[in-house]
């Protein structure tokens, strides 16, 4: 597999088992945070280990902090106040 050139957009696919979802209406994930649309779920076994290895390599970082709590990963849009569409 050839590595794309820097700046090339890459879309990642992950299968998750849903634990929380707010896709239709924006909601605050944390106190004082701006509302956003999000979905939270548990990834497949070893999925996170593969993801972290690839992402740290892609961003050339030795380590990164991620929204991973109790094996659950949250995917969210930008806060509603910054929305450019809709």
């Amino acid at each position, binding site marked *: 597999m050839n590595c794309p050139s820097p700046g090339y957009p890459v*879309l*990642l*696919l992950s299968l998750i088992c*849903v634990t929380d979802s707010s896709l239709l209406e924006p909601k605050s994930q944390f106190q004082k945070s701006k509302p956003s*649309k999000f979905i939270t779920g548990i990834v497949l076994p070893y999925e996170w280990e593969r993801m972290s290895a690839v992402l740290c390599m892609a961003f050339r970082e030795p380590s990164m902090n991620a929204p991973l709590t109790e094996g659950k*990963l949250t995917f969210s849009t930008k806060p509603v106040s910054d929305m450019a569409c809709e």
Partner: protein
Amino acid sequence: MTFHLNLILSILTYSHLIISVSPSKKDALPSSIFMPSPSKAGSSSSAVPLIGHGKLAAKASLNSDDIGMLFAVLCDSCTDVIVAVRVIDARRFNLTWEEEALMGLTGRPSYDQEPGVGSLVLVAWTASRYEGGAEGRVNLGCNLNWVAVLNDRKDA
């Protein structure tokens, strides 16, 4: 990651999709996502756009190239647009073509509902790097682009 992608694409190839897109993105869609409507005899006929309730709905059996193009078009400029794609296996639900078309036209029941807890969902996302916190730590952002509900627990 490659293994999962191939697995997922094989699932999607043999499934039917109902796609909901926000009106602001409607003009950017390629005509090829308006999939041909199969006749009862099984032969293909002219493309039929399915539009209902202010949303664009298309119904299709897509191959991997179509899905790749769909990702590229729908997620190119705005991460705030969520495109919910409902994957329906016609064999599992034993639906006729007319019943499936009705679901697309009326916008029910799939993408107007939140996936239930325990649902199996395919998430398409982009990663971003940003620095935050008092210590200037490097954080990973998981930007949501696209959701496909593969197995909704609300159906059970």
